[in-house]
Each structure stands twice: as structure tokens, then as C-alpha cells.
């Protein structure tokens, strides 16, 4: 060892040569504890979903006959029923229409408000912010009946816009809150620089500010989509035929001859698809997004 000491400075200055075979990877435990935990948790999450999928591909005879872990008699008839019958698939279209409207309205009104809350002090700002949040806490059950009466009186009952507006009750406060968090992370100097450079407020907001909080907008849109898509109590109360959501249509499977389990399961699977697609598109932002700009 001692001889290396003396030669160290010189030896070190030989251009690096590298032995070809690196030492084989060590400490490769066969299975990690965390993988087992995640495996079990995901199994717990997926089993009920698998069961639904499994049932949707069976005939009613097989479902009611004996318990089978996978469809012995694979059939797509249940899906066919849904996708060919307008009274079934219009439910999907209705749901998608009011969800889209809701997301658009939510973002349009929440963006300026969140900006105001993140940048300015004004009379009553704190109270207003808390009051907005309280609406997120309002139980839909409390509002179901008054909503029904309100929208009936303004002739909006059974329209998509009625559901979209009703869902704003809890989505707008949430969006304001999420966006405020993201906007707070953008330094104020950026606004000031833009104004000095002669940007008007709307132009600054669209051209400079929005791209900076794009991920926040995405997160707010995701949550608005999510809560509007999954809600049933209000959307069912406010619609009868023309704007009836798919989730409500599902109760139709209860016919005189009992429940049509196969079709019910297929409809259930189909309601999961839009959510799954949305998740797939935002998969790389989920982790950051769930921090809501507050980490």
C-alpha cells in the first residue's frame, strides 16, 4: 500500500483505462419486501375489477350456473347489446357532454379567480376563499332537492348544462384551490417583467402565465373530470331522459325477469374505460399532480 502513495500523483495522470468486465452486480436480493407489498395491494385493487370484466364476458347462464374464474363460454354479446342500443350508448354521450362542459366552465372561471387569490389582497379575500372551499364540503344530498327545484324553475331540467353547472358547485372551489397553489409557485417578478415589457393583462395571462402553470391546469382539469364523471346523485336527480348519464342508465338492467348481470357488468366495464384513458394520458404527471402544487 505504501508504494502507491509515492506514485499516486503520477499514476493518476495516466489516461483512464478501464477493465472491461465490471464486477458482477451484487446484493441482488431475489424478491424485495416492497414488491410483495405492492403486489398484494395491486391484487386487492384489481381482483374486483377483474371479476367485473370476467362477468361481462360471460353469458347469464354461465354467471348464474357455477362460479368460474374465467369465461368458459366467451361472449361479447353483452357489449353488443350496449353498443347497438341508442338508449344505452346515449348515456355515455350524455355523460361525456356534461363532463366536458363542466371542465370547460370550471377552468374558465377558476383561472382568473385563482390568479386574484394568489397575487392580490382585496377586501374579504380570506373569507371569500374559505367560503368557496365550504362549497366543496357541501353534501350533494343536501343540494339534490333544491337543485331539482331551481333548475326546473329555469327550464333547465334534463339538460346537459344543468348537470355541468351543478357539478361546478364542488369542482370550481377545488379548481381555484389547486390552481392557487400552482400559481403561488410562480414568482411575481415574472408578472412585473411582462407588464414592464408592455404586455396587457389578458395577453400576459394567455401567452406567458398559462404555459408556466400548464401542469396545474392539467391537474385541475383532471380533478374536475374525475369528480364530474364519478358523481351520480346530482346528475341523476337533474335528468330524466335527454341528459341521463350512463351510470343512471345502468339501473335499467333490473328487468322483470331479474337482473341482466352480463349487461350490467359490461356497462360497468365501459364506464371505467374513459377514466382509464385519461389516466393513461396523464400517467407521467400523476405523481406530481397529486401534490397539487403544494409540496
Amino acid at each position, binding site marked *: 500500500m505504501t508504494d502507491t502513495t509515492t506514485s499516486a500523483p503520477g499514476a493518476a495522470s495516466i489516461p483512464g483505462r478501464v477493465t472491461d468486465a465490471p464486477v458482477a452486480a451484487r446484493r441482488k436480493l431475489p424478491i424485495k419486501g416492497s414488491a410483495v*407489498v405492492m403486489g398484494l395491494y395491486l391484487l386487492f385493487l*384489481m381482483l*374486483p375489477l377483474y371479476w367485473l370484466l370476467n362477468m361481462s364476458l360471460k353469458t347469464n347462464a354461465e354467471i348464474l350456473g357455477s362460479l368460474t374464474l374465467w369465461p368458459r363460454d366467451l361472449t361479447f354479446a353483452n357489449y353488443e347489446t350496449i353498443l347497438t342500443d341508442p338508449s344505452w350508448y346515449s348515456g355515455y354521450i350524455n355523460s361525456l357532454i356534461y363532463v366536458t362542459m363542466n371542465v370547460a366552465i370550471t377552468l374558465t372561471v377558476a383561472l382568473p*379567480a385563482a390568479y386574484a387569490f394568489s397575487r392580490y389582497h382585496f377586501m374579504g*379575500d380570506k373569507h371569500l376563499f374559505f367560503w368557496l372551499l365550504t362549497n366543496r364540503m*357541501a353534501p350533494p344530498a343536501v343540494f339534490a332537492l333544491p337543485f331539482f327545484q331551481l333548475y326546473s324553475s329555469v327550464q333547465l331540467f334534463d339538460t346537459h348544462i344543468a348537470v355541468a353547472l351543478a357539478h361546478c358547485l364542488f369542482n370550481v372551489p377545488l379548481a381555484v384551490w389547486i390552481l392557487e397553489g400552482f400559481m403561488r409557485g410562480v414568482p411575481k417578478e415574472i408578472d412585473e417583467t411582462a407588464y414592464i415589457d408592455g404586455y396587457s393583462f389578458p395577453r400576459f395571462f394567455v401567452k406567458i402565465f398559462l404555459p408556466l402553470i400548464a401542469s396545474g391546469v392539467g391537474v385541475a382539469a383532471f380533478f374536475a373530470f374525475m369528480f364530474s364523471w364519478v358523481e*351520480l346523485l346530482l346528475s341523476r336527480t337533474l335528468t330524466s331522459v335527454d341528459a341521463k348519464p350512463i351510470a343512471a342508465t345502468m339501473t335499467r338492467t333490473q328487468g322483470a325477469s331479474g337482473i341482466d348481470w352480463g349487461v350490467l357488468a359490461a356497462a360497468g366495464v365501459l364506464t371505467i374505460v*374513459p377514466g382509464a384513458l385519461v389516466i393513461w394520458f396523464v400517467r407521467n404527471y400523476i405523481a406530481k399532480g397529486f401534490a397539487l402544487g403544494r409540496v
Partner: protein
Amino acid sequence: MNKTVNQKAWFLVLPVLVLVAFSAIIPLMTVVNYSVQDSFGNNEFFWAGLEWFEEMLESERMWAALWRQLAFSAIILAIEIPLGIFVALNMPKSGFWASFCLVLMSLPLLIPWNVVGTIWQIFGRVDIGLLGYTLDAIGIDYNYTQNFYAAWATVIVMDVWHWTSLVALLAYAGLQSIPDAYYQAAKIDQASRWAVFRYIELPKMAGVLMIAILLRFMDSFMIYTEPFVVTGGGPGNSTTFLSIDLVKMALGQFDLGPAAAFSIMYFLVILLISWVFYTVMTNMDKRDGA
């Protein structure tokens, strides 16, 4: 951030105000209106004062629903928060498997609530559901429509299934924000696994965990669709939570006065508890900003 005083900012808030006023204040006024009146049909209303409130406060039915509701929220919070943290700690940090877990975990969050109910209704049935069938096969008497414990267990497991991922994802986001240097320093300081959790991970997750607790509390306190689909509030009234009871009263029996009084008290309870959470949370935000 030091904000400037600008009263014109009100204009930016105006759209939200108009929208929320339309969809919150008007209906709320309707509710208040009903709560102090009595009706004998024919759209004739009579001033009833606080009669309905007094009636509701003395109503055993409401108190029972409230305690049931509190018990439910407490149980699911006690399960979902620790479980969510535990799952988050075990999630892969990056790469394909991280995305894989994130996608699968988010899935239950985007399923319409009545479908969640339907899934568990089917899953738990003794004749056609895997869970019910299996429990029955190993000799456990399981029937969520007849048995009090089975009904509660099903509703709770369903909620854990549905929402634990939300807690886990929030906690995971908190964990992701911890720089590597903290873990390295902890190794050098010879900190135990528990100490790393207690002094590094938990403090960094505190902010998002408060959000998780707030969201989970609010949503569990308003739960309606999922248990209604599975148990319909039964057996008896054993899973009739506040919202289920309220809807029964308002839309089922059309007892508008009592239902309105009930609504207002219900809302106030949520507000009170949420206000406590919110205050704690903003105080924590302030401390972070210091």
C-alpha cells in the same frame, strides 16, 4: 409571497362568485326557507320557526345516523391514512414499475361511484361473487344484506379499496419531493428506518397528508351512492349514513321541513370539522413559508 392590495382583483373573482352564488346560495336559501316553514301541500306554507330544528335535535333517528356517520369516517380514516402511507413508502421510486403502479392505483378513483357499489355488490354475493363465494366456501357466514357486521365490513373494505390510492398518491407525491441528500445524510448519521420515517419522510409528507385527511373526511362524511347501491342502508338502518337518511327523508318521504333542517345541521357539522382541519393546515403552510 407578499401580495399587493388591489381591490380591482374583485373583478377576477366575480365570475366564480356569480356561478357559485347561483349554484350554492340560491339552493341554500331554498333549504333555509323550507327549514322554517311547514306545508300541508297545495304550495301553502306556514311559518314554523325553529320547530323543525328542535324536532331534528330530538330525533333519535338523526343522532343515530350522525354517530354511524362519525364512526364510519373515523374507521376509514384510521385505515386509509396509515395504509396509504405504507403503500406510498413501498412504491417504486421511478421507472416503468412506478408508472405501472400509478396507473393501476388511479383506476378506482375514476370509476363512477354507483359502479363502485355495483362492483362490490357483485363481488360480495355468495352466489356469483368471488369474495362472497370464497368466504362462504371456507365456512364464514357472510351476507351483507342480512348481517350487520358483514354489511359494515363490506362498506368499509369497499371504501378502502376505492380511496386508499388517493392517500397513497398524495403521500407518494410528498415523498418524491425529498432530495436524495436527506436519505444519504440519514445513512451517515446512522438513523434507523423508523427515524428516517419519523424525522424526514413524515415531516415532508405532512402538508399533503393534511390535504388527504381533509378530502377523505369530507367525502366520507358525504358518502351516499356506494353504500346505497350495496346495502341500500340496511340491514335495518345499520348502514344508513347521513346522506342516505337525508335523501330518504327529502325525496322518499318528501318531509321537506325536517329534511331542510337536517340539511343545515349536516352542513354545519361538516363545516365545523373542516374548518378545524383548514385552520391547522393553513397554519402549517405559514410555518413552512417562514
